[in-house]
């Protein structure tokens, strides 16, 4: 059902031929998580650029795999033109992906791609940065300033597939380093306000923490606030860091309460899959999607300013279309 059917054809984009108004579907594990707000802008922008319909954003709100499988199957039933799936479980999506491929629907994975070393599915390509790897990076970065002591890793919902691999990765990084670091995973809460209280309590009970890491947006900003509240930088705390770029986290970085936060460039995780699926469709499958590491970016006190001063679609902080100016040399290694 490639070139027949589909809604009315759109005007050609750029040098590309006229195409039907293809509709792609993104299946996500935490549909309402702010992390993926830029992803949704990314997929929307790519679709607009290419004259496609705005892709559907669906899946599960609480990383329930069965709901994601249902959403995937429904999308296949609805005969969408392409699928991007966050493959948070290597086994669950094998069959749905095969079914989609059998039905002629191209499938890529984004943000998560099965387990480490085992994608599990037969998706055409993966666009993103592994959750586990990003967690590993979180730990490695901490190890640059930390040789020993107690480290707490905060996780809002243990067992939830969007963040559990990150904390596993971080733990592994400490283990691999062989340094005398004790790493403790600490559960916070789906409710950010409750999470803050829990991190606060943990800090009160563990005055000699040398590291505080977090693997979700809420916990990360809360770590910053707790560090500030107890002026922990002036005590034994060597390192504090986490994920995502929500405003309070950026404030924490800027004020020096947090050392770094990891930006997984979620915008690209939405933009590129649309692009790849479009290329696949437009070329009759000749242009196969390619594996793409969307990378990860450490935001530190040095480079936090532009994130704070500009609100952009690329970080999710606004819906406005903005041209973010920059000047001067680009930092490099």
């Amino acid at each position, binding site marked *: 059902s490639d070139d027949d059917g589909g809604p009315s054809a759109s005007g050609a984009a750029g040098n590309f031929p006229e195409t039907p108004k293809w*509709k792609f*579907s993104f299946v*996500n594990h935490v*549909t*309402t998580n702010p992390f993926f707000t830029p992803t*949704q802008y990314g997929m929307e922008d790519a679709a607009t650029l290419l004259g496609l319909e*705005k892709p*559907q*954003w*669906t*899946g*599960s*709100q*609480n*990383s*329930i*795999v*069965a*709901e994601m*499988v*249902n*959403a995937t*199957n*429904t*999308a*296949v*039933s*609805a*005969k969408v033109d392409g699928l991007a799936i966050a493959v948070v*479980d*290597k*086994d*669950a999506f*094998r*069959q749905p992906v095969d079914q989609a491929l059998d039905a002629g629907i191209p499938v890529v994975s984004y943000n998560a791609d099965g387990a480490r070393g085992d994608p599990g599915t037969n998706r055409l390509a993966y666009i993103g940065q592994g959750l586990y790897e990003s967690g590993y990076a979180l730990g490695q970065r901490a190890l640059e300033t930390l040789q020993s002591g107690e480290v707490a890793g905060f996780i809002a919902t*243990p*067992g*939830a*597939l969007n963040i*559990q691999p990150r904390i*596993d990765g971080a733990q592994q990084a400490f283990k691999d380093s062989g340094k005398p670091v004790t790493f403790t995973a600490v559960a916070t809460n789906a409710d950010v306000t409750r999470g803050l209280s829990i991190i606060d309590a943990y800090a009160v009970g563990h005055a000699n923490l040398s590291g505080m890491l977090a693997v979700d947006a809420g916990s990360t900003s809360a770590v910053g606030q707790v560090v500030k509240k107890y002026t922990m930088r002036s005590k034994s705390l060597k390192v504090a860091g986490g994920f995502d770029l929500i405003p309070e986290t950026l404030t924490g970085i800027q004020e020096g309460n947090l050392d770094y936060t990891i930006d997984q460039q979620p915008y690209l995780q939405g933009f590129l899959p649309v692009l790849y699926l479009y290329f696949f469709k437009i070329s009759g499958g000749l242009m196969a999607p390619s594996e793409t590491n969307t990378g990860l970016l450490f935001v530190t006190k040095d480079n936090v300013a532009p994130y704070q001063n500009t609100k952009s679609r690329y970080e999710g902080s606004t819906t406005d279309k903005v041209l973010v100016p920059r000047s001067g040399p680009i930092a490099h290694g």
Partner: protein
Amino acid sequence: MGKALRTFTDGFLRRREASVLLVALGLMVYFRAASPVFLTRENLINIAQATAPTAIVAVGIVLLLVSGEIDLSVGIVAAFAPFLLHFAIDFYGVPVLLAFPLALLIAAAIGLLNGLIVTKLHVASFVTTLGTFFAVQGLLLITSHAYPVPIPEEMRGRFQTWIGAGPWASITWALIIVAIFHIVLTRMRWGLHTISVGGNPVGATEAGIRASRIKIGNFMITSALGGLVGIMEAARINTIDPNIGGGTTLTFYAISAAVIGGTALAGGSGTIVGALLGALVLAELQNGFNLIGYSANTIYLILGLAILVSMIANQYLSRLRRAGRT
């Protein structure tokens, strides 16, 4: 002929479940009009698979609600049961056909614990099962290391298909279970006593009904059904995930299905067929709007409004029904 039809219509309208059924059918018509693929075989399978787990858990929830209790832990028992299966098979080499009833038995034992605390120590079931919810979640996360595992090799093939992976497997189970417990609730002593215990706790005891036994039994049934759903879903999605059931999500949906179907939170009255239809309504709503292509944020607004409209229609229909009753 006309009379036979009339008798049939009357008989149908006299049933309590009639109004929810009409709502479910109305939604079907609406979504078929909105999307031609709604009634294709594939999509009906989707709807069936989304209906089944909620409906099965709702069966237990109806029994509990009718007897005046509630169980928040059933969703986490659903997540725990397939891990029990996995431990038994992969670590202890128990054959799958033994491991399966064993897992259900352990699930039922959690229900027994709930029931004993509620009836013997008189702790409210809401807090009791909140406690077991957390405790079992802890056990689950500790033993599973909060990470999914593939389903055991031994489970694959016939057992997997038959228990949940077959396209119509889970809904078949659901229909069988609904049929059995519909009879239990409406045509057997157990059901009569369940209604009595919830409807008039003092009166039931005065009549010599042993309320504890009934309640404990219903807790065990609910937990066992939760366990079954967990294993069924693991088989269907081909993985054993600590987040099957999404913590309280499954429980929540099951309670919603029960209430939509006409079960009162206050106890003493409920219908199991209604709960099945309630689960169907929820599944249709979720599937239909997804099929139409609404995205996450919008879908909640639509879903919320659709629930309100459907339930207002439901009430209106059932008032019509009661008014027209002879």
